[in-house]
């Protein structure tokens, strides 16, 4: 067969210049890479969203409140969640855990150490312990304790350091130093007052509020506002996927609000999906064109060598021999292109993983299974279409 195929090569000449072939192969390569990129982008994005390595501590806790409108702004009752509303939220599919945020029914005044020269009115809120990412030994309080642990939101420290401090000529403080500061906390209302020593026990990204342990809040509210038992104005939910469109739609429907930042994921998701689809669609269209071009090459070869092919058949060449020869002109190159494109996508993926590490995001260093399956599928498709084309035009 070795010599026979060499002789076939001299007989079956198509007149298609080498440059045309290379352009067609290049087009095919571009189509493959586009398809690989879109598949890998999608896989990467899913990994960023759902892989445990990327679990963003704040991303899956959402604090919900009702939108305060013009009609409701003087009426705290209207802005509270009724028990039936709470029950409805709890049973939604996107709610993995649910907690009530308790507000203080008393007034609070805080006074940092004398050097800082200010005292301020404050408020407290509390959530069930499981919603906080803080060690239990730092967060315990019992009636009789003078020491009161407090959790501040990160944004508050930033507001102080970059707003208040700079404008008032006050020193900026680091997180660690803030934890060392004792704060004189006075809680009071008509009932009476009491003093505590507050200590910042930690900072939170999840909840923008000043938090105290639930045990303290329960005790203080009972002591200073025993009759009151208001519905909560804020609730906290844990969700697996803040970008879930179901969630956003539910909030819209009931006119609840939450930190808009965290819902951005949903928008980003849609945008990424569109980008991925567009790239993928381009790739597929280009692939179809490549298929068409190769089919036409085959037709051209067969028709321009019609006489020679007829004589070969007359002399006894089997159709399968001709088919094998023609496929050999194209199929090996398909494999080569697939391998080259796989190598390219591996390099791109490695580079992307490396860049993302800088942002503390983690994706796999290697292209996913999807890309390899796509490569095999594309080459198989090319083989089948070429094979059919040859079959069709040889027997004519």
């Amino acid at each position: 067969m070795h010599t026979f195929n060499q002789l076939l090569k001299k007989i079956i000449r198509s007149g298609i210049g080498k440059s045309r072939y290379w352009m067609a192969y290049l087009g095919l390569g571009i189509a493959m890479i586009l398809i690989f990129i879109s598949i890998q982008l999608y896989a990467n994005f899913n990994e960023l969203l759902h892989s445990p390595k990327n679990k963003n501590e704040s991303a899956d806790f959402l604090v919900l409140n009702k939108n305060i409108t013009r009609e409701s702004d003087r009426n705290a009752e209207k802005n509270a969640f009724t028990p039936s509303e709470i029950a409805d939220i709890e049973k939604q599919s996107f709610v993995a855990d649910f907690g009530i945020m308790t507000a203080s029914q008393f007034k609070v005044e805080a006074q940092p150490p004398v050097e800082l020269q200010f005292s301020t009115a404050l408020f407290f809120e509390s959530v069930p312990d499981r919603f906080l990412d803080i060690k239990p030994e730092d967060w315990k309080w019992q009636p009789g304790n003078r020491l009161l642990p407090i959790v501040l939101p990160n944004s508050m420290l930033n507001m102080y350091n970059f707003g208040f401090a700079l404008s008032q000529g006050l020193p900026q403080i680091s997180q660690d130093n803030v934890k060392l500061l004792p704060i004189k906390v006075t809680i009071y209302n008509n009932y009476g007052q009491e003093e505590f020593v507050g200590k910042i026990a930690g900072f939170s990204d999840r909840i923008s509020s000043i938090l105290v342990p639930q045990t303290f809040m329960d005790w203080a509210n009972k002591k200073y506002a025993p009759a009151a038992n208001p519905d909560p104005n804020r609730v906290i939910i844990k969700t697996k996927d803040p970008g879930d469109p179901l969630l956003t739609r539910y909030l819209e429907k009931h006119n609840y609000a939450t930190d808009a930042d965290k819902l951005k994921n949903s928008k980003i998701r849609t945008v990424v999906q569109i980008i991925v689809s567009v790239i993928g669609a381009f790739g597929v269209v280009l692939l179809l064109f490549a298929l068409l071009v190769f089919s036409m090459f085959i037709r051209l070869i067969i028709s321009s060598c019609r006489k020679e092919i007829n004589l070969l058949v007359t002399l006894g060449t089997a159709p399968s021999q001709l088919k094998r020869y023609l496929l050999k002109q194209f199929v090996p190159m398909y494999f080569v292109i697939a391998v080259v494109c796989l190598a390219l996508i591996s390099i791109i993926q490695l580079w992307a993983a490396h860049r993302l590490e800088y942002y503390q995001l983690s994706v796999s260093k290697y292209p996913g299974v999807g890309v390899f399956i796509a490569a095999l599928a594309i080459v198989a498709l090319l083989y089948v279409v070429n094979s059919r084309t040859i079959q069709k035009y040889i027997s004519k």
Partner: protein
Amino acid sequence: MQLAIQQLLPVPLKEKISQQGSGVWNNEIQFEEGKFIKIKAPSGTGKTTLIHYLYNTRYDYTGKVLVNGNPWQDYNASQVAQLRQQELSIIFQDLRLFEQLTALENIQLKNCMSGKAYCTDVEIDSMANQLQVSHVLQQSAATLSYGERQRIAIIRALTQPFSWLLMDEPFSHLDENNTRKAAQLIADACKKRNAGFILTDLDDDQHFEYHLEYQL
């Protein structure tokens, strides 16, 4: 391989043959295996047509051409190719070499068609020597004279196994010497394979010791 014809009648010559009659057309003939068969036919009686019917390159006939008891129509393209590679060889009147190949390459094309080379290079060289075409083997087939091409076509037909060799005026452009040598070559090749041949030509001749002779 058994070769037979039944009431074979070329459509274009129907009229003529029904008028004149024929020893081959419209008869039932079983060609005996291994026999050297001569079919004499004046010009225009359909010599080449008959060869093409037997080789299955023309199909405008009524009646049957039977290969191993089955008509050609029963065989698919792969089976026909197989028969032409293993059982049935041919020397065309118009030779049908590839002009893009050299003389030797034309021979090698048939020689290697089945995968393994049937004749060794030495055997081919020897045949070329006998027919005095050694010196043109490396030349492009397009540059050869008709006689040289005819001798190459003869050698090509012998680089395969066969049980039947079809020949259509194979010595038309050869001098006496070369004709004698070519006939010897062919007779030896056939005897070696226990094969028969069917040769068509215009006149009587003494090239071979024919076993059977027909008038077309």
